């Protein structure tokens, strides 16, 4: 009896593994790690949709999805599953620990892995230590800070405040270090705790900063998660002035900003519909809306899209065996710009052809502030 029990489980696992890998020369098989369940499942939907769209646009891509959940452990198991499906390359995963673990596993199983969301410096370190298989399409922590620094240079606020999210302190502090080197120290550096520690902390911080910040000040909000929305609501309700600069994530999506009427919120994105960096930019946003009936995600989703597009182009150029060489030597056109990779396998964000976008939500619509070639407006201050 007990054997029958195991047999069922094993049969189910084997079902997944036993499919013969049909490998035709034209098609690249890409595994996508998507956080379908758990804390990041909202972003996961965007990533999955974008991946499917990318496969459609690329034409030479076959996708295999696996749920990487919200822990590094689940990400690793999901990655192993993808490897068992004989994928040629893997993209995705969400949090930094997830990407770190998958990067190691990619090195071990010699499968190319494109980090499409996580920003941790550890990824470049792994490449420097000899892990050739990992590339990052997303920003690194320094670029997150650099982009915020660009905004400060544009806005020239009287003072700026840095509000971080406590469980992401390593990320926040790395980012702040980069901001400091560009624009000097913030007036105040403060972190609110995760609501599972202190449910009210973001309100307290919002009230505090609202009491301090003036008309011509900037609040840099280092929380990409859902609490950032609550923080912003609370900040404005308490009469908070100035501009709130969100590092992205939940508060960087125009339709969310519209829903909560988040006037004078500045946000960064990999690309926006109005910033036609390449021919693909508009195509991504338009086709996404048509296909899924909602606005496309402009960071995690878009970069997952680009990762797949990059792999598809690299595969066309050099085939499966030369994937790494092609990625390192070539230029790849994605929705966010033209990608090239440096020696540490990091996409050259900040180069002329690949820049993050800063937008401002004001008067119910999005105005582009940066990069200058796409700017549609100056920084607008609250009156």
């Amino acid at each position, binding site marked *: 009896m007990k054997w029958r029990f195991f047999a069922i489980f094993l049969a189910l696992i084997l079902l997944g593994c036993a499919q013969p890998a049909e490998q035709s020369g034209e098609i690249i098989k890409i595994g996508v790690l998507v956080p*379908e*369940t*758990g*804390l990041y*499942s*909202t*972003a996961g*939907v*965007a990533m999955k*949709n974008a991946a499917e769209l990318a496969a459609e646009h690329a034409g030479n891509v076959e996708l295999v999805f696996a749920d990487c959940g919200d822990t590094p452990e689940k990400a690793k198991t999901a990655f192993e599953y993808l490897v068992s499906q004989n994928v040629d390359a893997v993209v995705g995963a969400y949090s930094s620990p997830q990407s770190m673990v998958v990067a190691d596993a990619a090195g071990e199983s010699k499968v190319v892995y494109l980090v499409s969301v996580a920003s941790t410096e550890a990824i470049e370190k792994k490449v420097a230590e000899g892990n050739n298989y990992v590339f990052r399409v997303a920003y690194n922590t320094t670029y997150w800070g650099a982009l915020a620094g660009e905004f400060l240079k544009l806005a020239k606020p009287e003072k700026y405040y840095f509000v971080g999210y*406590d469980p992401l302190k390593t990320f926040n502090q790395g980012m702040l270090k980069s901001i400091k080197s560009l624009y000097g120290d913030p007036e105040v550096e403060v972190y609110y*705790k*995760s*609501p*599972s*520690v*202190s*449910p*009210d*902390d973001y*309100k*307290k911080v919002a*009230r505090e900063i609202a009491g301090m910040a003036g008309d011509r000040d900037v609040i840099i909000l280092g929380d990409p998660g*859902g*609490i950032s*929305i*609550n923080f912003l*609501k*609370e900040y404005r*309700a*308490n*009469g908070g002035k100035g501009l709130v600069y969100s590092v992205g994530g*939940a508060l960087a*999506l125009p*339709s*969310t900003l519209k*829903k*909560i*009427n988040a006037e004078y919120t500045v946000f960064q994105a990999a690309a926006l519909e109005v910033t036609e960096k390449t021919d693909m930019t508009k195509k991504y946003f338009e086709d996404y809306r048509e296909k899924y009936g*909602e606005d496309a*995600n402009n960071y995690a*989703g878009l970069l997952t899209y680009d990762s797949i597009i990059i792999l598809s182009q690299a595969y066309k150029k050099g085939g499966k065996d030369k994937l790494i060489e092609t990625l390192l030597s070539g230029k790849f056109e994605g929705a966010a710009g033209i990608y090239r990779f440096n020696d540490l396998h990091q996409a050259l964000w900040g180069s002329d052809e690949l820049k993050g976008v800063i937008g401002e939500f004001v008067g119910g619509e999005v105005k582009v502030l940066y990069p200058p070639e796409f700017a549609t407006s100056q920084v607008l201050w609250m009156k």
Partner: protein
Amino acid sequence: MISALLTAIFLSFFASAVILNYKIGRLLNLSFASIFTLGAYIYFSFNPTSALLLALIFGGIMGAIVSAATRKLSVAEATIISLGFSIAIEESLRFLYRTSYYQVMETNYVELFGEVVSIHEMLNGAMIVLLFLAFAAIPLSRRGFELKFVEDDWELAEMYGVDTSRIRFLTISISSSFICLSGAVLAPTQSLFPSMGWSSMVIAVIIAAIAALAGNAGLRKYGLTIPIAIAYTAVLRWLL
């Protein structure tokens, strides 16, 4: 201060429901996490008045199912089943509301003694206070005596002919119902996503556990959850 107090009242209500379910339902009801989330999604999907009513009903139904599924089981088994329910509700919500955005709604704020407070939080606070008062009045009735008896010694109460399974059923259903309602009332103050209920759940369990350690006498342990809720979040904020 007011806002912190309202949060403490909410957490204390959540923790009291956990204690009540533990004492009378004899399970650590982890399904509350998702029933709370369910309430929020109901509010998101319907017009406010019918949403509140639906939240009460759906919460009650969920509670009734959990109660029926965990009848006559050990505390540990019942707890695991409630965990299963919690995951099932959460995953179903993820299916039903497949979107790449946090669901958000606008909320209105009012100024109260120089402090800006969300109307929905106040509403939720008021509802809970009323609930507490009603709960405090229960022991005065005959039913209340039975309830106290069951809470005190479940087996003895059964031997004396108290219909414990009915009391258990009602306790789990009604508390689930109000947890769901609370989720609906608070929805506009939150960013909605399927696992949002867990952070409140975890704190509620901790507060309930501390209250259980601190004292076991009658209604006092429920009242005790308020200062514990305030102290716990304050201490952790200070510690970390």
